[in-house]
């Protein structure tokens, strides 16, 4: 099946609420409420939905309250509050739970002491035999009508973007005792694979120890029989084995550091999206590709195109209001009034949507001006994509660190500490191989810590990060980074580096028209393309021409694990062309990468299906925090036990 997460989830929720498997009628229950046949069970009544804290966000991100209501689900309860529920024997209970030990325990208690009429139990991941037995044991009143595993132990952000069930990021990075977390991530990924029916060949970045653990965990889950051999024939309709690509964020620390310039990424960067909810002022705005067609069309647009689009949207709204304004209505006849009233709910939706997006865009605009992002963004891209000479870049950084006054303005332009830190970090990453006299990282750090120039001064861990990032995120890179400091090799086709600005324009030739700063046709704010692009291209090229050993460096970077089921079906030859790729970035994915995947899927005209995900969705500040945590934790460890230094590092990387 195609990799389409939203469709998958809607089928699942149909199973949950509309067409319970107990009835077993395979009528592809047609759209919405009205189309539903009267296939109501004789005893079918109002329903209560029992969820746990893990499944609550999963369901709330793709299913709305009104959808629930229209399916006669009139009550939603948390199973954690099981002891305090009111008995309502009139209600049928639909349980949607993650098969965690706690939830099972609560469910057992609930079954022993039932509050509702009957139970349909859905688990969002595989449940083991022992758990089933315990449940069966506790169902003394025989109220359970069905037990079904559906596989949705992950959050769907966009149609092609997922995150694994929320975890504490820090625990993962510090990851020494994090085996439980690892299993959690792996089971979450496995549930994703099962839900889209893919039994993949696993490829992971060789230099990451975490990924090696994770991949072997996933491979074990696929190969072992504990899942009732679910993986055995999921591929039966596929021509070629799908690929699960596991990447490590630390191999591309640049992408999340940059200020993005497309709608969804910008909202996350500047305002913050939490489970598809954005808080602007006191308002809570829901962003969903599913229910908001304007958002669907504009989420990947860059800022310039976006403002055009919003303007058009507002224009459209204005013309509609003119048509239907109340003054006009009085002069018109009743038939028009009737039409208006019929359309009124839609119209109301429309107007609230317009105001929502206007609100968002104006907030974005405010933030951009407040943080001087036009200048900063340009400089960031200049550093990363090497658009100007080293010395002029240094000059500009100095200007920003010195809070210079731009020629037309009176006030000195003060950049926030956070942005300054990001900028210096970018510079340090970019010129890490340049030697001392040229490389002015230290000067920059000194300027940063000068309280006269920077207030509030950067935190200690931020400074620590700037000084010693090399040990933590540099090492892994040095090995693979074939880029030399000169820009000449970057133009050669096989340079796999962090900075690949030039190729970007060949691929996405988009222009930002309202950008007055640059006369170039290319969008100067989007010069950088994530390393992901490079990884994917070489992966695909390598597959298409297996004899071509030019792309050797990816084969070095990626290690391949092939599950038994795949070998059984396709043989050991893996030189087939790729059709489906599932990417998981350990350490967090960015919306920018999701956009890249989206464009990719579109350009290849359904020959390639890619979805992407990570354990969190990063923006620059959360990534910086994570990096600081990483460095901090490592430094404290190092100071405590020096002899273990090397081992620690290897652990981390």
């Amino acid at each position, binding site marked *: *099946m195609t990799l389409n997460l939203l469709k998958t989830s809607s089928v*699942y929720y149909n199973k949950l609420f509309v067409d319970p*498997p*107990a009835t077993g009628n395979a009528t592809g229950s047609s759209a919405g*409420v*009205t189309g*539903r*046949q*009267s296939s109501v069970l004789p005893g079918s*009544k*109002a329903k209560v939905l029992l969820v746990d804290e893990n499944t609550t966000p999963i369901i709330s991100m793709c299913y709305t309250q009104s959808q629930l*209501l*229209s399916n*006669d689900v*009139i*009550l939603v309860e948390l199973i954690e509050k099981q*002891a305090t*529920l*009111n*008995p*309502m*024997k*009139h209600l049928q209970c639909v349980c949607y739970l993650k098969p965690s030990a706690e939830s099972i325990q609560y469910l057992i208690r609930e079954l022993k002491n039932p509050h509702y009429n009957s139970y349909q139990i859905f688990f969002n991941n595989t*449940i083991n035999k022992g758990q*089933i*037995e315990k449940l*069966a*044991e506790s*169902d*003394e*009143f*025989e109220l*359970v*009508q*069905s*037990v*079904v*595993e559906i*596989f949705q132990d992950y959050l769907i952000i966009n149609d092609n973007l997922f995150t694994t069930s929320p975890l504490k990021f820090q625990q993962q990075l510090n990851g020494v005792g994090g085996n439980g977390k690892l299993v959690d991530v792996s089971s979450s990924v496995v549930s994703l694979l099962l*839900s*889209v*029916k893919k039994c993949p060949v696993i490829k992971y970045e060789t230099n990451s120890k975490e990924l090696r653990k994770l991949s072997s965990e996933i491979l074990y889950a696929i190969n072992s029989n504990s899942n009732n051999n*679910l993986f055995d024939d*999921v*591929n*039966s*309709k596929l*021509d070629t084995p799908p690929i699960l690509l596991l990447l490590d964020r630390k191999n591309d620390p640049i992408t999340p550091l940059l200020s993005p310039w497309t709608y969804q990424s910008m909202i996350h960067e500047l305002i913050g999206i939490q489970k598809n909810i954005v808080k602007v002022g006191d308002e809570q705005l829901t962003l969903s590709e599913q229910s908001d067609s304007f958002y669907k069309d504009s989420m990947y647009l860059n800022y310039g195109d976006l403002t055009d689009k919003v303007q058009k949207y507002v224009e459209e709204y204005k013309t509609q209001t003119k048509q239907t304004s109340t003054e006009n209505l009085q002069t018109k*006849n*009743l*038939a028009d*009034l*009737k039409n208006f009233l*019929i359309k009124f*709910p839609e119209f109301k939706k429309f107007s609230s949507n317009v105001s929502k997006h206007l609100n968002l865009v104006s907030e974005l605009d405010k933030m951009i001006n407040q943080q001087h992002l036009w200048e900063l963004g340009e400089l960031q891209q200049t550093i990363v994509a090497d658009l100007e000479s080293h010395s002029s870049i240094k000059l500009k950084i100095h200007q920003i660190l010195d809070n210079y006054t731009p020629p037309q303005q009176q006030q000195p332009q003060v950049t926030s500490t956070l942005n300054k830190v990001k900028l210096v970090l970018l510079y340090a990453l970019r010129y890490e191989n340049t030697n001392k006299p040229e490389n002015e990282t230290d000067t920059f750090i000194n300027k940063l810590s000068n309280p006269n120039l920077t207030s509030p001064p950067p935190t200690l861990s931020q400074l620590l990060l700037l000084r010693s990032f090399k040990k933590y995120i540099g090492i892994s890179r040095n090995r693979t980074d074939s880029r030399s400091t000169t820009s000449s090799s970057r133009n050669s086709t096989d340079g796999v580096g962090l900075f690949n600005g030039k190729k970007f324009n060949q691929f996405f030739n988009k222009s930002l028209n309202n950008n007055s700063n640059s006369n170039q046709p290319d969008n100067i704010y989007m010069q950088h393309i994530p390393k992901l692009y490079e990884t994917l291209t070489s992966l695909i090229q390598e597959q298409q021409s297996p004899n071509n050993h030019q792309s050797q460096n990816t084969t070095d970077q990626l290690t391949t694990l092939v599950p038994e089921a795949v070998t059984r*079906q*396709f043989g050991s030859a893996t030189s087939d*062309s790729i059709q489906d790729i599932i990417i998981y970035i350990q350490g967090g994915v960015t919306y920018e990468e999701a956009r890249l995947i989206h464009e990719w899927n579109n350009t290849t005209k*359904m*020959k390639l299906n890619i979805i992407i995900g990570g354990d969190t969705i990063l923006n620059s500040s959360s990534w910086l925090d994570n990096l600081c945590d990483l460095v901090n934790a490592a430094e404290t460890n190092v100071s405590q036990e020096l002899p273990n230094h090397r081992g620690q590092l290897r652990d981390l990387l």
Partner: protein
Amino acid sequence: MSESNTPKRRVLGSNVPSGATPNEEVPSNHENVLLCPICSESMVSLSQLNRHIDDIHSGSDSGVLSSSSSPAPPASGSPVSPTPPLQKAPMNREFLNGSVSRWLKNNFENVVETSPLTSPQKRKTVKLDLLDKNKGFSLSESLTSPSTLNVFNDSDGTKEKDISKSPGKPPTASASRNNVNRLSRSHWQQPSSVSTDYCADQTCHRVLNIKNGKVNCRKCGLLYCNEHTYYKARLKNNDTIPKKPEILYEPSKEGTWARVCRSCYEGKPEDNEPLTNDLTSSFKKQRQIHNDQKELHRNKVTKRFIKLVNLHSDYYLSTKTNPDFWFSSSSWTVSRVLDEEKQIVGLENWQHDSQVQACPLCFSNFNFFTRRHHCRVCGRIVCDGSLNDKQIICSMDVPLNLFLNNKLAHLNFSPLVVQNMKELKEIPDDNEKFRIRCCNDCKDDLLHDWKSSNDSNRDVYSSSSEIFKLYDQLFLIKKNIHGLYPKYEKLIHSYQVSGDLDEINKLRIKLMSFLRDFESLIALFKKSFFVLTKQNVLKPSDDLSSDIQKLVNNIHQSTTTYLQETLINIKQLSNVLKEKEKNELKAHQQYVADAAVKNIESNNVGGSEEDSIQSPLSPSSLSPKPLPSQILEPDLTKRQIRELREELMVMSEQKFIIQGLIEKVTKSRKFDELAPLEENKTELDRNIQDLERKLGEFGF
């Protein structure tokens, strides 16, 4: 290649100077020395070879060559070796082509009936076809007859040449070898020789030529341009039906990668249902096992309980007369009761204090504050749960009469108990004697049957049961609407001729009455569970608990949105219907107007307008419309028609007369008479119109 070249190389070795580059055999061969493929005589130039073949080998000596096996290997090289020169020396192409093919025809009819000599142009198509290993090309294929088709291995294009070069191997053998992976081509669309071909893709429809490519989709066999066969799928032959080959998708290593068109790629069977795993059956099986065991266990527990009750009522009844029992001489002592209790549980089940360190139910360790207690039913040691904070009471000293009162009164107790049942039941709860310690598990076991029989009927909250009563009614109506609505929708959408209007109207009446009921029920619901606050906001009434308030709110919201949606949908549907009716009416009017050639003015314009003006908000739009069907549906018998027509004629005559009169009156200026005449005339007009409407298409 190597296989067929070995003999040639041997020959070469004898003739060619050692300087010839060994890895470019064929070209160097042609540049330096040309060998006659038949007699191995060396030639200087191509034209010389040509002439040689023409002169020496033409026609006459076919028998020698085709029959013996030894000349075949050198001969086999010939169809290939001249081809590269073909491209190099285009001047000679025509000439060579003719001669060699003639030669071939003569000599190789029995071996391979094919023409490996494709024109350079055709060769080029092979090279274009880089996308898959399935390198056959349509043009040459089309020339070959079905019998030789299977000689060519589809999985490897080079085989094509190989086979023709190695006739030492019988074709049948190679066919059987290659047949496994070969895709059938008999269904391929042949490129037409007269007209140009177009890409079969709907959006493309390009002329197919060398530039655009001319490729058969391996699955459906149609011809496409290169761009539209840029898809791959694994395919295989359907071998189950012999004779009629069919290409199937085969998504495993058995399948052969092949070029397919977009529609075949998209048409690949897909599994669009995300995976679910139904564990119900295994769950129920296990539940069965457990519940059977538990049933047994419960029986045991119940038996023990009966014994306990018997024991204790005996004890109680015999000691109650003597309140001073501690000092009495009666045989009942506390230790005896305890012994009896142990007997009932079974000595092997009665746990020793030293064995148990923690309560098996709440896992708290026993100590000075958490005391050990024996459950008298199962014999386990449990705590009394007074200290743990988990809200679970592990065991209780339960007054037996609580059990007896209504929950377990019907059990098979001893006659003594049954006789004194009434008295036993009335023992006050705080009595110290008639009670046993019982753990939570045993309590659940004892009360299981009672619970399962009673629970479903019991509802703690009277208000919630009220709510559900109303909700059930709402639900029922909703179900009815659900059932009717799709029918109604279908009828309206399929509405064509005026025939089924009756049914539509009936359905609408039904639907509307349901909706009205629904609405009034919602109103009732609102009235009973909601209060209007001072700010004019509806709020669930405060005497409901917060949970119930939430419930009530949700129900209200869901039902009202449902009502609104359905109403809007129905209104839209009736708009659709009206639109359709209007169209039909217009068509009808047209017809009537055409038919009524006479001076009858074009009539009922009113009908349709009346319809649309009808107030949209008034309840009348919900109720069935006044039937315009009368106009549309002159469901008349012949006799009625005749009568009506006669009437109409009379009317028209009268109208004619009156019109005459009016004219007269106006001429004579008797205006006072004019008014009644006019009135008369309009009345007649109306009548005529009515009649015509009734007659419909049966009018004049």
